[in-house]
């Protein structure tokens, strides 16, 4: 099973959204995907 998220986030210079994990990383519920 798989979950796909699609979302809007800021990309302006002052506040740019960035993912904080790498492809293939294990992630747990509640851990940050991006900020």
């Amino acid at each position, binding site marked *: 099973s798989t*979950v796909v*998220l699609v979302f*809007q986030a*800021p*990309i302006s210079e002052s506040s740019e959204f960035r*993912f904080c994990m790498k492809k293939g990383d*294990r992630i747990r519920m509640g851990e940050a995907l991006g900020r």
Partner: protein
Amino acid sequence: NGGSSRGNSFLVPGATVATILMLGALHARRLYDDKKIEESRAKGIELEFHPDVKARFLRLLPLRTISRFWGSLTGMELPIWLRPYVYKAWARAFHSNLEEAELPLEEYASLREFFVRKLKESLRPIDSDPYCLVSPVDGTVLRFGELRGPGAMIEQVKGCSYSSSSLLGENSYLPMVAAGDANEESDAEENTTRDATQKSWWRISLASPKVRDNASSRPLKGLFYCVIYLKPGDYHRIHSPVDWNILVRRHFTGHLFPMNERATRTIRNLYVENERVVLEGQWREGYMAMAAIGATNIGSIELFIEPTLRTNNPQKKLLQSEPPEERVYEPKGVGVLRKKGDEVAAFNMG
């Protein structure tokens, strides 16, 4: 008679040994393949899409029926004395952490119940930064990035992509995305020789207006995606990634192909062919959608905000062209509020 009974006494153990050897060989081959894939990934080699005969064969199998049968089988109540043995065997095979289960093993009546077990309180602290988006599940991050250009395509593997609108639904409230990145767009506006469609914004729906900074003509908001795969041993409940208002639910009936790594490399449009439930709404930064995609072994999706929803139902004929069943949550435009970390759904066996 004597010869016949001697033959039978040889046949049964012989067939058993042969079956065990065959299964062992298949398992060894699978481990070898997995190791090769891991080695390639470590070297930074991208796996490419490569359809094979096995993938074509899968289309002929009644996978939805198999999935429901698997669900009935695993839903059978087990004797209390047997439960710890079965669940420990499952945990050993699929690397589950039994220490995390909320209840003692004897209290899960069936494997199906054990599979969607809750976790002990506060085992998964939720990142409280209001500007962060958290993982809704335990799993492996397969892909992520920004959606750009016409079609807003999400890559399944190298050489095979699917459009976000076919994943989420043609009626989706998906906002417009820019063709090319922000800088490319600015350049395009100055370059009149470039194709007009490349520098224009395209839309699927006007429900969410584009937001742009007039001074720099640079968009303020982008559209991002993230694909997370859950292995059979993972915790299978889905939580809210942010504080958001869920406005719409869409249920797409479809196939129930396996969702493992091999399947993503061999079955075209896997994510848009499989049965799935899509939730759409708004968070502080705009649009938010979450698609829960089923597989053969985990065929049904349970929504805690809509307990009456039934997925993986028997159907006489599966029509891919059938529009999804949609429900708009009340009150219209507000929907159902879910806080970051709240339980939203669960994947069930079968």
